[in-house]
């Protein structure tokens, strides 16, 4: 099939502002990933096209971008998800809310700064036992969903509250906090909840579900945020 790829391009060394470029690719398979198409443009047509990518099967989180208007990983978006007939168009833009550096590459600093804000690490200052700390499968299940996060930023940059105000910690950071708040072995839930009770914490979540819809790992993010809200309410 034939696909016209419409890509939002910007090279700070050459362009004054971003523009749309179109590339027509032939012999596209229905099961090709959008990442494969981007590679074809880069490798066959224009090597200056820049985007991040690594594992190409949805586990490293490098290639979150806005495809046909919605945040997805380019390596988990298949052509057949967008084009039914023998010909079609797919539009690719950088994710929203973080500064664009070049083409599809955005500056992730704010994102990782928010990540670090929520103390995203296991804290237990007691002397550990000789063997593993025990944890029942039920206790483990409570935070299972939040362990899946790959920090791709698809959720945070799909959130209208984050676009409006980049100081909002955002869904990804809250998911990371959830991971430890509900881990029976961790001891710093209160500190994290206090951080998240601030103005830029969970209360900026308006229960819109864009994050949940955008998550390539299918984490029920809004549910996890609501669980954190309720936990703060309990304290």
């Amino acid at each position, binding site marked *: 099939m034939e696909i016209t790829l419409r890509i939002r391009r910007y090279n700070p060394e050459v362009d004054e502002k971003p523009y749309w470029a179109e590339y027509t690719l032939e012999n596209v398979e229905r099961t090709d990933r959008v990442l494969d198409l981007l590679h074809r443009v880069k490798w*066959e047509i224009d*090597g200056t096209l820049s985007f991040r990518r690594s594992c190409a099967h949805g586990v490293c989180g490098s290639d979150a971008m806005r495809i046909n208007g919605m945040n997805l990983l380019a390596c988990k978006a298949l052509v057949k998800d967008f084009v039914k007939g023998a010909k079609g168009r797919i539009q690719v833009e950088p994710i929203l809310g973080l500064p664009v550096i070049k083409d599809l590459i955005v500056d992730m600093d704010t994102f990782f700064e928010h990540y*670090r804000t929520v103390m*995203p690490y*296991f804290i237990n200052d007691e002397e550990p036992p*000789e063997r593993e700390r025990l944890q029942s*499968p039920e*206790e*483990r299940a409570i935070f299972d969903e939040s362990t899946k996060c790959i920090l791709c930023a698809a959720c945070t940059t799909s959130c209208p509250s984050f676009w409006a105000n980049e100081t909002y910690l955002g869904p990804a950071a809250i998911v990371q906090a959830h*991971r430890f708040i509900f881990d029976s072995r961790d001891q710093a839930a209160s500190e994290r909840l206090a951080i998240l009770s601030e103005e830029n914490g969970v209360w900026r979540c308006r229960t819109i579900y864009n994050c949940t819809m955008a998550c390539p790992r299918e984490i029920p993010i809004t549910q996890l945020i609501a669980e954190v809200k309720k936990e703060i309410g309990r304290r």
Partner: protein
Amino acid sequence: MKVHQFDAVIVGAGGAGLMAALYASREIKTAVISKLYPTRSHTGAAQGGIGAALGNHEEDHWEWHAFDTVKGSDYLADQDAVDLFCQEAIEAVIELEHMGLPFDRTPEGKISQRPFGGHTNNETGRPVRRACHAADRTGHMILQTLYQQCIKNNVNFFDEFHVVDLIMNDGRPAGVVAVEIGTGEVHVFHAKAILFATGGWGKVWQITSNAHTLTGDGNAILFRRGIPLEDMEFFQFHPTGIYRLGILITEGVRGEGGVLLNDKGERFMERYAPSIKDLASRDVVSRAIYLEIKEGRGINGKGYVHLDIRPETVNKYFAEEGSDRRIDREYVESKLPDILDFCRTYIGIDPVEEPMPVQPTAHYGMGGIPTNIHGEVVIDENNTVLPGLYAAGECACVSVHGANRLGTNSLTDLIVFGRRGGQAMVEYCKQADFVPLPENPAGEVEAELERLRNASGKTRVADLRAEMQEVMSDYVGVFRLEEGMAKAVEEIRELKERYATDLHVDDRGNVFNYDLLEAWELGALLDIAEVTAVSALARKESRGAHSRDDYPKRDDVNWLKHTLAYQKPDGGIELKYKPVVITKYQPKERVY
């Protein structure tokens, strides 16, 4: 050019790099340089589990783990290293748990374990549950946990800095050169101790489970600086990659009862490994699949077989074997969620309804930068240490994997030797001084980068890379022949020539110039492809992953030794050999 100074510099932020960073940063000034954000590292793609004889479900001993590892390695692993590796595996896994790693749990709350290829109860020969896991995303959990702990310890990260050279002064390592990808600026990192943990080089082949970024940078950089590469002919082809895509389907599928079936619906592994069947070690299974396909028993005569985890199939075989275990849909969903997701996304197949089409996929380099058990790089047959230089993880060769790595041992390797590397650097830095930087330390590599940036020949980087991958897949893949490998060596040399004279790069800019960096990475891949082909051509036997039709038997008399490949000043490759350390396990025929 900016110059930074740290006691220790770690190149690569996967499992090994982060583990080393965690240990080093506690006592010395440490920097971690990574061409990706650390959480993008390919450790995160590891699925099935990390091997350690915890014995949480049934009797197990580190000695059994050690024997399985040696046997799996086809007796090429150094047995002193393997013993230490299997002993420390246990405390390393416990340490990960103490860092908060969310393992799956047994009903008693202990770390859950499952069977994996080649891991056995040494007395009965039956599979033993040794792979500690967190669903089928164990590597993801390890990578996340280590990164989290590094954040906690305020480790200095240089994310998206691409290391392109090792600075040597008077034969001693003085630092590394890195390109800041976001700006194109060249940075020099002056350090007492440098640890390479740059991972694998699966991109040498066409069908691979490896990430696009696994281009063997560290190995190529060191090789160019005169450090040998060990056992590069041994590259593991994982038996079960998704057909044509190469995306890995964990051995955990077979650990949970999944079986391989050919076009006739036969469980063909019964013929190749009567005792543990589908859970034979990877080289054995990959070869079996290859042979089935070659003999026309691939599905519909095509180049793949089926991997079946449908509960009805699995339960049928459980019943036949007299096992009272049974699985259902929910169990598969909970133990292998990512695998189901991959298959549903990429091939539109739901593994609980239909079998998965699989073929062997280039997966893991057993060889690499030679090190001792402390992660110190050794540079000759006598294991002479090059002070200040370290390596750990897939890019290193200790060697605990020998000619074929057992499943789960890669993650164990990262943790055990990453930690040892970190500790060794601390000891070294306490007593060592900085090797002074030479004049213009980045000059050489800057010139090469400028050449590439302005390369205006006719060959596109991607085309040249594809040609190399084709050559390597055709001639230096699962099965190998003298003639093919000789051809591969010749063709790779031609490709290298074109790389030097006829390359084309579009992007002349500085900011995120991935066009340029991909060109540089291709240089690394070509060097590694050549070393691999040359080393393989010389080894006239079949052992582990190195399987030759013309020499189908293992030859312990002539070839029970490690290959060391050196770059000669004229650019050619010189091969030397060093003995394998044998302690208690005498080589014998390998039967599963």
